[in-house]
């Protein structure tokens, strides 16, 4: 390597170290947030208590609270945060629109609709629901995505990012209305279930749900991590990406499918949580820049942290009852969206 290469490269190596530092800090924050989350709640435990119980000397009751109630909920929050933020990152990369998010685009609503239909026909009682519900939600999410695709499809195959967002918002509104219509048909228990689902309660807080979600999440995250370099090139725009030899339409379709699958499966256990897929990629880009091999992991960790912290706040803020997680995420997310919109406007005015 030439001397000049070395000088330039040393700068980027410094950046790599900095990025590793950020990843380590996020991991630390996640562990800390998980420990705090374990210790707060209806029966409050101290930090020392939590450590004591984890290391194996707690009472049966304490072990039950910690490992059967709180821990699965924490693990689920982390997983859902990972999945939704990754889905948001993919959508933003593929559509080239920084405001893309599975919640805003109606993909969550599509999943929601099939969840309601499922509950309407099969009830909520059966254990089978744990494993079939993700499939139902995925079908709904794919249906919504397909609907958006059919509405914006043009003969030339050129899809403008703007039309994706606008059509997505319309589809989201339509599906939500349809869902409200169906809710009228539900009996009391079904209604309670669906309404808590709609506001994004991490309702299935037990290990079965962790188990049901885990394989989906692992496979999908592994697949998209192998696509980071394609994503890097895709965000350069259609023409440049083609020039660099990316099969745009194929890659777009695949990545959209992965995004929809991630969102659908996560939403089936968490309920409709918006804004995570919007916020996490932005925060990640701010922290480590736009290259996906670092940005995507940082985005996933940020998403996990966001949902975990929101869920923790949701559990403690109005004790002894609790707020739905999705509401807390939205309380944080809505101002962030407004901030993004104004920042984007300023950026356009400047350029």
């Amino acid at each position: 390597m030439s001397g000049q290469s070395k000088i330039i490269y040393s700068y980027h190596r410094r950046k790599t170290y900095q990025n590793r530092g950020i990843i380590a800090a996020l991991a630390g924050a996640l562990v800390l947030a998980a420990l705090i989350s374990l210790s707060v709640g209806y029966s409050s435990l101290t930090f020392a208590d939590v450590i004591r119980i984890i290391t194996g000397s707690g009472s049966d009751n304490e072990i039950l609270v910690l490992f059967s109630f709180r821990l699965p909920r924490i693990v689920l929050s982390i997983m859902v945060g990972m999945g939704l933020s990754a889905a948001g990152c993919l959508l933003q990369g593929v559509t080239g629109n920084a405001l893309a998010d599975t919640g805003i685009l109606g993909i969550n609503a599509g999943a929601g609709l099939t969840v309601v239909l499922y509950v309407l026909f099969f009830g909520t009682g059966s254990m089978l629901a744990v494993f079939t519900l993700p499939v139902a939600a995925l079908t709904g999410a794919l249906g919504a995505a397909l609907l958006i695709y059919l509405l914006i499809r043009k003969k030339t195959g050129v899809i403008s990012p703007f039309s994706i967002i606008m059509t997505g918002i319309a589809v989201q509104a339509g599906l939500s209305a349809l869902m409200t219509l169906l809710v009228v048909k539900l009996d009391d228990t079904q209604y309670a279930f669906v309404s808590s689902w709609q506001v994004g309660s991490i309702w299935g807080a037990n290990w079965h749900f962790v188990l049901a979600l885990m394989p989906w999440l692992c496979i999908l995250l592994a697949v998209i991590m192998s696509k980071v370099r394609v994503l890097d090139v895709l965000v350069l725009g259609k023409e440049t990406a083609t020039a660099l030899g990316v099969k745009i339409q194929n890659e777009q379709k695949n990545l959209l499918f992965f995004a929809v699958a991630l969102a659908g499966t996560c939403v089936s256990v968490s309920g409709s949580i918006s804004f995570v897929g919007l916020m996490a990629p932005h925060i990640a880009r701010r922290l480590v820049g736009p290259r996906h091999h670092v940005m995507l992991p940082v985005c996933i960790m940020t998403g996990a942290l966001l949902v975990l912290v929101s869920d923790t706040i949701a559990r403690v803020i109005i004790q002894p009852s609790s707020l739905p997680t999705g509401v807390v995420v939205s309380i944080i997310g809505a101002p962030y969206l407004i901030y993004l919109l104004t920042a984007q406007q300023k950026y356009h005015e400047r350029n």
Partner: protein
Amino acid sequence: MVKMDVIATKQLELAYDDKSVVDNLNLSIAKGKITSLIGPNGCGKSTILKAAGRILKPKSGWVYLNGSDIQKLPTQEVAKDMSILPQTPAAPPGLTVWELVSYGRFPRRRRRSKLTAEDKDIITWALAKTRLLESAAAVVDNLSGGQRQRVWIAMAIAQQTDLILLDEPTTYLDMAYQLEVLELLEKLNRERKCTIAMVLHDLNLAARFSDCLIAVRNGKIVAEGTAEEIMVPEVLSDTFEIDAEIVRDPRTGKPACISYHLREERTGL
């Protein structure tokens, strides 16, 4: 059989949605030469370049790259033979110059995740050629328009292809940088035998640097040939509807348009 030009089109028809832009176009770009497409706004020159670069799919007809139908070639393989500089490329916020230029190596290192020492040397070479070594760590969107344009050119040449397509590579550049970019392309052409095909707005620069000019109007080729053949009042009148005064540039010896009027039938408008 199509003759072995680097790019050749046969009965090419191009359209946006249902609006036809180009119809029955037979164009060829000779290997090892610098070819410029010239013509008025909206004449279809950029559209033709897009089709040549497989960015726009033809409505009918064929584009051949080295004799093979470009639509049937794997796009990744095409990227090893041809690099393209689009008209208004955009970099994501926060990306550094070095990082963007490194994407030029993407077609050749899809499966490998790390840049090799050779890749790094090529990137450094591309940065040196475009005089961007000092700005290597700068963020692309903080640069001036001219510098930004050079970054994209650096990315295109880092692809190290034998054919480079450029859509108005001198837009946004001030006069010195325009020359610099074209001289760089000329050097690549002479030293590395790169075939260059581009859309250029400036007639005199096109005449000065091109081996072959193709004048386009309404999606049709009006004339093609050397600068001496194209830079004549008749052709410019047919292409641009102008009445041009052509002289020899005393420094380069190339024809140059020093003054022009609107053709008579347009003056009354």
